[in-house]
């Protein structure tokens, strides 16, 4: 069992993670990042459940977290399939690509012009070549200049 101070510590951490995940799922437009935010909320709930379980010396909370893990795995598999299907139709991982499905009285999301990307292009590590260079198509580079 854990003392009450540890319980409230852990409850605070769980609350912070839950709220951050909430903000993320409300604001971000990338479907994958929205999904990561939902998982962040699940993590907050898991911390809270385990804290109460250890405080009361009862296994129920930890058992529930085991099932949360199971359901999260199922949910990730099914949801990623749907995300891939949505991507195959629109070519974008953008939630606003589906805004034709919004409520009638809601305004349309209009993409404004973005300023130029101000990030520094990273310098990737240079590996000394080894072996024979395979014959390839030079026009299609496999390297990405940013992630």
């Amino acid at each position: 069992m854990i003392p009450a101070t540890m319980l409230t510590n852990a409850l605070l951490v769980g609350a912070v993670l839950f709220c951050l995940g909430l903000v993320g799922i409300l604001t971000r437009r990338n479907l994958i990042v929205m999904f990561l935010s939902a998982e962040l909320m699940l993590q907050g709930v898991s911390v809270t459940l385990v804290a109460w379980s250890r405080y009361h010396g009862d296994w129920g909370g930890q058992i529930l977290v085991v099932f949360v893990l199971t359901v999260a795995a199922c949910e990730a598999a099914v949801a990623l399939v749907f995300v891939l299907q949505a991507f195959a139709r629109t070519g974008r991982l953008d939630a606003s690509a589906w805004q034709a499905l919004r409520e009638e009285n809601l305004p349309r999301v209009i993409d404004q012009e973005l300023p130029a990307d101000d990030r520094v292009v990273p310098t990737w590590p240079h590996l000394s070549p080894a072996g024979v260079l395979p014959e390839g198509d030079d026009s299609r580079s496999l390297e990405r200049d940013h992630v």
Partner: protein
Amino acid sequence: MDPVSTATATPSGLLLAGSVAALAASLWLLLPKASDTVASRRLGYLLGAVALVGFAATGRSLGCVGEDAVFLTVAGIAVISGLATIVTRSPVYSAIWFAMTLAGVSGVLLVLGAQFLGVATIVVYAGAILVMFLFVLMLAQPSGMAPYDRVSNEPMLAAAAGAVLLGLLTLSIGRLSAAEPPSCCRMPSRAQAVAAAAPADGAAAKDDGSTTLIAPATAGGDTGDANEVAHLGAELFGRHLFAVEVAGVLLLVALVGAIAVVSRGEATETDHRRDSR
């Protein structure tokens, strides 16, 4: 309520309101927007640090933040990486930060004494689920960050809502610990009963009451002992056996469903006949 908590209500209330405002401003500055500059992002990081310290101080004044250095470290890793997960523009970096959050959460679970779940979080989440996300990201966005990763929907409203919700949750957690005064130096009543029933080996210096901070790890016998995983397994496959079976069926259904949705399937005889008609 007792007079002590009413007397401390005003400064901690001010502190809490300040932390909520700082967190909302920091989230608004950090979330991806078209008008982002390097300076505004730096201000956002600064305000985020202020909000973090403010929330810790609020929790402390409400009597609910302890001084366990290991716990504070892993909790700090979890919270800071969680913030980075939602504000990073590149989704790949977002996923990596989420892995860091999982490491922090796993540390928190280990400090709490849930060994199996701490390990399972790393193995199942970081090892399987997160890698699946990265696969999809690499498949769907091979060119990297897209324009829609650099804007977000209603960042101001969402940041305010999240910060206010966190403030309310902090208040209610503080009330929870204020309900059992003095909260810092007390153990749950069940643990006290166990400690009282146990032989007096651990109760040698009980006169000042401060030794009760250390929970009798072996006295309870239910959680937190060396056979934690064995006990969890016995509980899982004993009392909750039916739920385990249901979870297995759920996994199977998810598997079949995912395959059924993703595979278009070969056109069958009937399809050909219908098409040619």
